[in-house]
């Protein structure tokens, strides 16, 4: 049995005692919760007293009358928001002007309970609020943990490296203990899978090397005139065995660019990653369209695919290290989760921007725009 603290701030003693009485033996159940919630009701007659109790008792739910003798309800609400307290606020009002309602809503009040209310109405509101509060806390907790995970680059990396090692070790043990019998043929798929895991681990390590290069080794002497057209062809050649396997067609156009002043490694990283992703996340028989346009002020590289695409939520986390979009469509696609974060780092280095447009099941377009004037004025490090 878990208990939530409810603070009711109202200058009418009848309302306060009414709430106490109604919620005194009320409990909320919800399928996700394996225990019921009961309520401990605290009372305050003024906004000032309310704030004092909020600071001291940290209630979970606040029932707030707007019209109070001293400071008004919305001011108490503002205080709660400013302090970033994790409290769900509902306004209890006899007459709410539109202005007050809008302000309260903007400040995060999630419910309005009209006054006078029946015990049933109060209970229904409290039930709703309790569920929301419960879910909000869980989501918040997961978000905080999620954020921490991303920051812990090395830890996640070690996990990404250990997972394939565990898998390979597992298969080797099966062989060592002859769990599938004495014939080597029985282990063909175990061997094949081990080789695949080794391959993906190798890719991760390569990406990682790129990653450290981009982060730390910026050498001006590597800058030279780079032929973008050649780099595009090279990137296409690199990925073509895989593209042929998936029956992917390339279309490319390079307009107005002869050479640009850059570190060729950087542009290889950008092009290789974008083009290989466009193949990897494409559908069999799809197309990859690469276009490079150079104007006086900037060059634009865009890579479009006709693949699985992604939704907005997925797009948000795209450039974060080790973020991989996990869904049914990506399940059998291996990747380190580093590629795009590396591309982003390189693009930043050139003071450029990278944009992505995407629609699920239709495909994605990645566009990198790098200002020409900035290339000679490189950042040195990140």
């Amino acid at each position, binding site marked *: 049995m*878990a208990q939530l603290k409810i603070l009711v701030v109202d200058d009418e003693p009848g309302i306060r005692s009414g709430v106490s009485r109604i919620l005194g033996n009320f409990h909320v159940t919800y*399928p*996700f919760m*394996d*225990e019921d919630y009961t309520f401990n009701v605290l009372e305050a007659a003024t906004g000032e007293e309310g704030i004092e109790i909020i600071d001291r008792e940290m209630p979970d739910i606040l029932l707030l009358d707007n019209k109070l003798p001293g400071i008004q309800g919305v001011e108490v609400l503002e205080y709660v928001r400013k302090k970033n307290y994790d409290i769900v606020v509902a306004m209890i009002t006899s007459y709410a002007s539109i202005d007050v309602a809008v302000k309260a809503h903007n400040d995060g009040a999630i419910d309005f309970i009209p006054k006078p209310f029946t015990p049933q109405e109060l209970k229904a509101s409290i039930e709703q609020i309790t569920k929301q509060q419960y879910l909000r*806390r*869980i989501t918040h*907790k*997961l978000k905080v*943990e*999620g954020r*921490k*995970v991303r920051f*812990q680059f090395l*830890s*996640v990396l*070690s*996990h990404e490296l*250990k*997972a394939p090692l*565990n*898998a390979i070790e*597992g*298969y080797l043990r*099966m062989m060592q203990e002859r*769990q*599938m019998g004495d014939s080597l043929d029985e282990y063909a798929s175990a061997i094949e*899978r081990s080789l695949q*895991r080794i391959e993906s681990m190798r890719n991760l390590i390569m990406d990682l090397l790129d990653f450290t290069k981009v982060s730390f080794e910026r050498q001006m002497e590597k800058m030279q005139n780079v032929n973008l057209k050649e780099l595009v062809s090279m990137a296409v050649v690199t990925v073509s065995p895989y593209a042929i396997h998936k029956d992917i067609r390339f279309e490319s156009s390079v307009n107005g660019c002869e050479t640009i002043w850059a570190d060729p490694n950087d542009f290889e990283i950008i092009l290789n990653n974008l083009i290989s992703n466009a193949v990897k996340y494409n559908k069999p028989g799809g197309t990859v369209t690469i276009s490079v346009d150079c104007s006086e002020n900037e060059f634009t590289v865009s890579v479009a695919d006709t693949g699985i695409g992604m939704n907005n939520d997925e797009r948000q986390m795209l450039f974060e290290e080790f973020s991989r979009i*996990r*869904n*049914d469509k990506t*399940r059998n696609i291996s990747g380190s989760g580093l590629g795009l974060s590396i591309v982003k780092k390189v693009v930043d280095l050139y003071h450029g921007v990278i944009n992505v447009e995407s629609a699920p099941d239709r495909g994605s377009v990645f566009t990198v725009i790098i200002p020409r004037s900035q290339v000679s004025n490189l950042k040195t490090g990140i």
Partner: protein
Amino acid sequence: MSKIYTVLLADDDPDYLFQVAFYLRKAGFEVMAVESQAEAEQVIAKVKPDIAVFDLMMESDDSGFILCYKIKRKYPEVPVILATAVSRETGITFGLSGGQDREWIRADLYLEKGVRPEQLEQEIRKLLKI
């Protein structure tokens, strides 16, 4: 073992899934092995396993938590083991002893992933009291 116990096993690492399922089947369990939260939910809708072992991160970062909720809602008595590597690797702990976590993680046992199949078998037997 007179009764044959059924284990629902969900993990998106196909190799780990294969190895554990293989081991448990050899040890005499019936294993329903699935690679995703969605498949696990389909199984839960139709079949009541004797015990479930869920990976935490599958389609989403909290797939394992969601599966814990769903299976406990349908079959409160089925023990659940939640396995993930996140905790040791990142220092984020989801201790089941702490009251706050206990409130929202509906697992009976929390295991570090990478646990050997034989250790997992022991834990399963403990929870099934066999």
